[in-house]
């Protein structure tokens, strides 16, 4: 494993995601070892071939790791130890390869699904959030009628409104074609910066890593 740039932050910094001595094993086979602190607004990029355990790292942080893997170490978010917490209580949001819009809900229904923070103005917040990614007036639409790029934006907005304290991105652009990938990368990283929360990006695309602009860890 090699580390190419970036800096390690001081301990227990407010809003930081700290991965302390994290080691992953599959059937006794060592996969990776990490010791990183990601500051709010910062991105840790983990690069490596498939099967290197980088997606498992995200699953472990978010609380979904398959029991066939074995992990040691701790994940500290904003000073709280979230290691082994039930997934809904970690405060960690996810963005997948596929937008995964719930097919039984409208676009607005999808965004509202995860919205946290008061019910009163939720409709307004949903509409504003959709407008912020150029999807004003799309709320009532069936997700199935959207283009690939539009779906990815809805997924992003849904994630943002759930007010995560940290964000994990699992190769979020790998299924898009090149022009769309560039455009969406810009939108996503802009929103990430606005949120000012730590993020972990898993990818095997160097351009993703460059756009993220944080620490890059490469697993071999």
């Amino acid at each position, binding site marked *: 494993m090699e580390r190419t740039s970036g800096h390690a932050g001081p301990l227990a910094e407010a809003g930081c995601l700290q991965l302390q001595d994290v080691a992953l094993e599959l059937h006794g086979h060592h996969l990776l070892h990490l010791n990183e602190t990601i500051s709010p607004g910062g991105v840790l990029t983990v690069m490596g071939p498939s099967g290197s355990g980088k997606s498992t790292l995200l*699953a472990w942080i978010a609380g979904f790791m398959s029991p066939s893997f074995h992990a040691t170490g701790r994940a500290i978010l904003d000073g709280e130890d979230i290691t082994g917490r039930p997934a*809904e209580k*970690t405060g960690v949001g996810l963005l997948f390869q596929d937008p*995964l819009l719930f097919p*039984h809900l409208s676009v607005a229904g999808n965004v509202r*699904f995860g919205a*946290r923070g008061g019910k009163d103005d939720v409709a307004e917040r949903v509409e504003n959030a959709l407008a912020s990614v150029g999807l004003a007036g799309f709320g009532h639409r*069936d997700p*199935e009628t959207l283009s690939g790029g539009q779906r990815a934006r809805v997924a992003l907005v849904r994630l943002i409104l759930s007010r995560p304290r940290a964000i994990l991105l699992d190769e979020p652009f790998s299924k898009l074609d090149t022009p769309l990938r560039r455009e969406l990368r810009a939108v996503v990283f802009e929103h990430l910066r606005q949120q000012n929360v730590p993020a972990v990006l898993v990818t095997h695309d160097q351009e993703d890593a460059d756009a993220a602009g944080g620490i890059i860890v490469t697993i071999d």
Partner: protein
Amino acid sequence: MLRLAPWIIVLSLVLPVVGGTLFTVPPAFGYLPVLGGDDWSFRPWLELAATPGILRSVAVSFSSGLLATGLALIIVFLFLSTIANTRFDRWIQRLVSPLLSIPHAAAAFGFAFLVAPSGLLLRWLSPSLTGFERPPDWLLLNDPFGMSLISGLVVKEIPFLLLVSLAGLPQLNAGQRVMLARSLGYLPRVAWFKTVAPALYPLIRLPVYAVLAFATSTVDVAMILGPNLPSTLSVQVVHWFNDPDLSRRFLASAGALLQLLVTASTLSVWWGLEKLIGTGFNAWVAGGNRQRFDGTLWLAGRGLMLIATLLPVLGLFALALNSVAGFWRFPDAWPGSITLSHWLQALPDLARPFWMTMVIATAASVLAVAMVLAALEHEQRRNRPATRALWLLYLPLLVPQVGFLSGITVLSQMAGQAPALWVVVWAHLLFVLPYVYLTLVEPYRRFDFRWIILGRSLGLSVNQAFWRIRLPMMLRPVLTAMALGVAISVSLYLPTQMLGGGRIVTVTTEAVALSSGGDRRLIGVWAMVQAITPFIGFLLALLIPRLLWKERRGMQAL
């Protein structure tokens, strides 16, 4: 609570089957204090042995089970070997599920109305081809050798075996296997039998055993199509059970035990045949013959499947025709007049049994779906395979119904329990559960787990994720499983008849009871109602998601 679900399923199936079977034993040996049987003895067995024609009953039960299952399996395999995604194949495959959901009794009545001496087929052929001016004096139905029983069973079981085979084929890469063999010079049908059939059979072995157990012990089909004087063993047992003379219960229990033995020995003979045929088959495969029989196989597969599909369709048509027929002289192909009077006459009597049928069917299938969902959800959350004990799901399908239902009847009478709806619902549950489980297990496991991960990362608890993501997204398979449960329940005769003690009356028990009367018009009406009822469930299962997700194209595809 969820943790207990698999065990609740297993126990609610195993307890009645094993308990029911065990409680058949004491009365079979003369011991049943409630009925004055205070001493153990072999008297019921001596009485059973002295029953006129008992050997013949046993022989017919035994042979009809073996022959019906064997023939149905052969026809299904012959057809599968010829499948080439033609229009005919797609047509057959589309018909499989509807044909499967026709209740046994209705299918048997339809078959009877077709092939009887005065049935539809002979009417269509007479007098032009046969010269008959009046129905011939042939024993086409209820023949002493059980031929009509066997034919009816073959026609009814083909859709089931075809469905389980079609479900198993995709994992075998049948197309590739056949292609490979053809590239080695085998003709297509021979290639299928040599490369796919040996791999397919193990996948459908349990369903085949279930067919075998059913065919040796069916009561409703045998009452309609089977021989009289003596009738099959299972029918005799039910008659003895229903005898107003309660001392006959001892004889009935001995008969029920004998039925268990007959079914068990049929299963072991089949198992032996499996080994024998397997050896011969391997020799044939190894022999390397590539060219012979291909044309014959093709013709047999296509022709027999066409007949087996047309018969139930025509049977339903015969039922419908009879239910609205006015005066209908024999060789006339069509009734002289059409009338609704039979329906209008029957409607007042139909209402109560119809609602009772729906109540029992709905209760049993809702319970079954809830139990199965709980077990599957538990399996998902634990993230490990289901408990091995779930193979016991097949138990109620492998043990003859009379065998354990008689014990349950005896037990509930000993407990002073009057015939109660919940007992009947439970008995239906035994037969509904296996099918509901088998239909739901695949869609449940295939469901993309990322949906749940996503929902939980958006703040949903495990339970909320089930109700707000899993259930709505799986609504279609859940409703289909429920509809299948309703169809199974509607078709059940014996559980209602025995445990309902004549007080709980469904469309099915009424329709079967009419078979002895022989009023074709009335039978036509009741059997039609019985045949249509399952379709209501399937129609709802199709329409509800479509209405609910009218604006959601993504849900139409799921």
